[in-house]
């Protein structure tokens, strides 16, 4: 089962290695990971998607909490939250197919951010299902390369992650 963990960490050298190393060392598989800053200086937020049963996840969370640089770990899976991921897709785009691609992009509310004689880069944001659907459609034209940010999440409403009980 997929679980989404939001991990607040001190922004110290090596902290990423500590967190990701813990996952691999204890045999937990990271499916997706995103790291970025927060409003508080010196504190970063990692969003990690793992595929594991609830007991394993409980153990992951406890082990993460033991890392001295980890400030808080929250399991967002069962909370009302919004999650997004951003993908850049480079597709083959011969002049004859460009408008088709443009239409498709519009349907997905994706943006075209670069055009060359035979390719385009499209930026698309969304939840997993939408992104998968989009990639499926793009495959028809021929995807040359993609880059993605990894999924990030916030709780819905005014509550912030720090207020969640851990």
């Amino acid at each position, binding site marked *: 089962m997929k679980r989404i963990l939001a991990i607040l960490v001190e922004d110290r050298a*090596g902290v990423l*290695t500590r967190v990701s190393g813990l996952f691999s060392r204890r045999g937990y598989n990271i499916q997706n990971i995103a790291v970025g800053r927060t409003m508080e200086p010196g504190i970063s937020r990692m969003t990690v998607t793992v595929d594991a049963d609830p007991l394993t996840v409980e*153990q992951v969370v*406890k082990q993460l909490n*033991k890392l*001295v640089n980890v*400030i*808080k770990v929250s399991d967002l899976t069962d909370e009302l939250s919004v999650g997004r991921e951003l993908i850049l897709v480079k597709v083959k785009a011969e002049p004859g197919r460009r408008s088709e691609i443009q239409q498709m992009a519009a349907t997905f509310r994706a943006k075209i951010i670069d055009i060359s004689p035979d390719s385009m880069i499209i930026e698309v944001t969304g939840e997993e299902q939408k992104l998968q659907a989009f990639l499926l459609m793009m495959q028809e034209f021929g995807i040359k390369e993609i880059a993605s940010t990894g999924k990030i999440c916030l709780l819905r409403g005014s509550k912030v992650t720090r207020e969640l009980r851990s």
Partner: protein
Amino acid sequence: MKLSGAQMVLACLEAENVEVVFGFPGGAVLTLYDELFKKGVKHILTRHEQGAIHAADGYARATGKPGVVIATSGPGATNLVTGLATAYMDSIPLVAITGQVATPFIGTDAFQEADITGITLPITKHNYLVKDIHEFPRILKEAFHLAGTGRKGPVLLDLPKDLQVEEGEFDYPQEVDISSYKPTYEGHSGQIMRAAAAIKKAYQPVLYAGGGVISSGAHAELLALSQKGAIPVTTTLTGLGGVPTEYALFLGMLGMHGTYAANNAVHHADLLIAVGARFDDRVTGKIDTFAPGARVIHIDIDPAEIGKNVLADIPIVGDVKLVLQEILKRLRPGDTREWCDRVLHWKKDYPLSYQQKDDHCLKPQFVIEELYRLTGGEAIVTTDVGQHQMWAAHYYRAREPRTFISSGGLGTMGFGFPAAIGAQVAFPAKTVFCIAGDGSFQMNSQELATAVHYNLPVKVMIINNHYLGMVRQWQEFFYESRYSQTSLEGSPDFIRLAEAYGARGLRATSVEEVAPAIKTALQIPGPVVIDFHVDPAENVLPMVVPNTSLVEMIGGWEK
């Protein structure tokens, strides 16, 4: 006050009341050693960094205070790895300080550069690569704090050469503030009430105590709970010494080489009270058949231990001493008379046993029993790893906490002798014995030089079976006696080895020679090695067949 990085280390050692450091110098710690020289700090120079860190570990296990070890960069630092892992697995407080190449050279594969913080990440409680002298006072304070609080463990500080010279303001912090590190000491009162209620209701309770009891100094509370609640008690290898051996309801060690009484009691228990223990696989055997009918109360300072291997019905996170005190306040004993009778019968009918028949084939168990008899169980005993370790656990019967010192979690051969050196440094007037294997001793026998150098009267008793005995035993049982690479031919004459270092060497090959050898060793004021030639075919029994339940044991108690 302005101090250099090296001076800061020494100021910190003073502030933390560190009375001795163990270590080995090199290029990247020259400045540190120069300050050490100027300050006259007590330093034990070993002959290998592994010896230094095991000695610091032995010191920590014997005293409860953090052990401190220093090594140079690169190979000096990597030589600490086994010692760090050993301490980490048994939650022993250590502070390891390594030199590192100068800051501008980090990451360039400079001479003697090794990424020791990267390497030791999974085997330290925490580690630091110091990059800014202004952060160093805080880091020093944090290192000692982390090592010695919560679930204890080793912390490593990697200090680049240039920062040892660079000066900064030194104001040693009084307090530590790590927002993300706040161990829970007091148990949850609701859970404690539930635990007390479960104890009241239980008919067949068992206390299963681990190294956490030693670490938190909870032995008196453990005994009180066992006595007041009439609850039989068993310990793990690292819990030995936590319960007085002559105490009637003490069942000895449990697990793979546990006693019949301990393993049966746990197997038939209706309530298992795990105190500072972590359900290691050497303890539980096949996990889903472990204590099948028991509700589990699990008390531990580390929340991650609870529910890791075995689900707890009543988890209590906290310092085991404090939690046991609270349980004791609310304790109303259940009716355990019948159960205690049954357990005591097991204890009486199925004792640990061996047969010392022929005078000329010395049994290793006999040697250790004699040591117990002649020291009254009052020595500090360290062990290496293997058969002799299990026999030491069975027959030495340590009476006091911190007097039985053994590498449990990692099972590190070569640990015993340097650990004995550390314990002897801590308690110069005490009798310290290392019960060593002929294989294990050769992994750190160079430390004889250290024992001689500082005139540390450590007594090494080599249980010399001419084999890597424990491995040989498994080959005999499970690999049709194909003794692949376990015969130790070519081992030195241990008497002459000892004498080459200027220590004394003794030998005993028959029953009558055992006591005189031990007595002679006790009278010699310096280090002694006694080479006991024992039956190479002897096996450690009882033994739980691997991957079965604790009661599926190969005998040893038959009369």
